[in-house]
């Protein structure tokens, strides 16, 4: 039972990270109608820039994540403007090739600045909490709490604020949105910026648990794609539910079946969903 609670918290913490990363990807898909294959590399850059502020400059942990998130927001806006915007009327394959190009560029950039070796970001938050007999590391508690707060703020932004509503409007009807005076280019920039910002928060939260490397975004990329397909492309509640379901499935499989098997769960789930219900498991159940 103690092991189960321990792993449940591990799964929830991982789920929080997956959610934050997947929501950005699903928003970008909803607004720009493209799968942003460079998403994982934005996450990777977010981790390195957090590392830079924390370790090299010596900024406090949460502030370092915040500053990195702002930088990545600007980078996301720039990516939309310089790469995706000029291609907006091109066939979809062009976007995908451009996104892969951006991914390689960001990886090479990180390698040039920080080297190809793994780096460790020391856990700034130490200690453990005792929950129902299980020892939970404070870092994981911080991840879960931060993820919940950020998700709540995001939900408020999209549902209540006028700028957030423009994202939903474009997702639901691009022509209708243009006719009420919404500028689709502005919303595209906002959405890509937001997705990079959320990925950075995810990366900064999980970085003290994992190691940093220029290719750390690749595995995450595959998983967040599995999550948004599981949840239904473009669906926010789907991405949240999918993130937690996948993370807990992964953690529990690693614990109770085999640790080597944990990562493969994502892809078994992905293949099964694509084969049986390609529109996603939660598209009917959780309509927005």
């Amino acid at each position, binding site marked *: 039972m103690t092991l189960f609670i321990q792993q449940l918290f591990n799964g929830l913490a991982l789920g929080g990270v997956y959610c934050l990363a997947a929501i950005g990807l699903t928003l970008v898909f909803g607004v720009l109608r493209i799968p942003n294959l460079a998403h994982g590399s934005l996450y990777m850059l977010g981790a390195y820039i957090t590392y830079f502020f924390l370790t090299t400059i010596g900024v406090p942990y949460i502030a370092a994540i915040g500053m990195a998130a702002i930088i990545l927001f600007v980078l996301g806006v720039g990516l939309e403007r310089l790469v995706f915007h000029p291609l907006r009327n091109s066939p979809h394959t062009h976007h995908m090739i451009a996104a892969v190009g951006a991914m390689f560029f960001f990886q090479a950039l990180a390698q040039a600045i920080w080297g190809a070796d793994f780096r460790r970001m020391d856990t700034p938050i130490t200690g453990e909490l005792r929950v129902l007999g299980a020892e939970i590391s404070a870092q994981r508690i911080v991840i879960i709490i931060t993820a919940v707060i950020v998700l709540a703020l995001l939900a408020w932004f999209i549902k209540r604020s*006028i700028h957030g*509503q*423009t994202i*939903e*409007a474009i997702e*639901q*009807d691009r*022509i*209708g*949105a*243009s*006719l*009420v*005076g*919404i*500028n*689709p280019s502005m919303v595209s920039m906002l959405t890509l910026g937001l997705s990079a910002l959320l990925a950075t928060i995810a990366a900064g939260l999980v970085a003290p648990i994992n190691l940093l490397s220029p290719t750390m975004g690749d595995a995450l990329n595959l998983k967040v794609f599995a999550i948004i397909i599981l949840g239904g492309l473009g669906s926010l509640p789907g991405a949240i539910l999918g993130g937690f379901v996948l993370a807990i499935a992964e953690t529990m499989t690693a614990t109770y079946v085999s640790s080597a098997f944990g990562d493969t769960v994502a892809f078994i789930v992905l293949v099964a969903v694509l084969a049986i219900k390609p529109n996603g498991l939660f598209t009917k159940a959780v*309509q*927005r």
Partner: protein
Amino acid sequence: MLTLDNVSTGYDATDVLHGVSITARAGELTVILGANGSGKTTLFRTISGLMRVRTGTIDYEGRKLHRARANAIVKSGIAHCPEGRHLFGKMSVEKNLRLGSYPHRNSSRTEEIYAEVLDLFPILKEKAKQPAGSLSGGQQQMVAIGRALMSDPSLLILDEPSMGLAPIVVEQVLESVAQINRNGIGVLLSEQNAKASLAIAHRGYVLAEGRIVLADDASRLLDNPDVQAAYLGL
């Protein structure tokens, strides 16, 4: 006043509109008649900036609009209620209407216009919290017209507002269009129901294969034998 001078546009290599010139006078109801595929929808999409003008000019109250984007054109006072409505189907009726005021979102007039729209379509008051996509066709058309009105336009473009609606609902929709025009908003309307639309219009144009073939006062178009034969089924 809206003036199109010799406007041509189209998709890919083919032009759909060939040198169209029309005028919609301020505060008047102008109707565009024409068979399916004659270019009515393309004409409206061009005015509202959803399609690019290839040659010719569009002028609205002294401002050149033929290079402007849709989001800028709605700010200048032209609201387009498109064919197929293009509502935000999963959002509530109220959110749809309120997003209509996006161009003037900080204006103090928003609440006033919102109340006017609900006066015009009282049924929407009951449906305010329901997703727009769950409403009947006629009610969705009311949301679409209401959303367009929320931008506080001086000219409202309505592309076949009665399409696919039951006859009794068609009557209601056209009556509300006439009401909007009586309230002082200019209307540019395309309509399958030529007789009913000419009855409430000031002027009319007949569009055929992307060209204006007839332009006259609405009452004279009603009596025109060619129009009667082609569009009134007489």
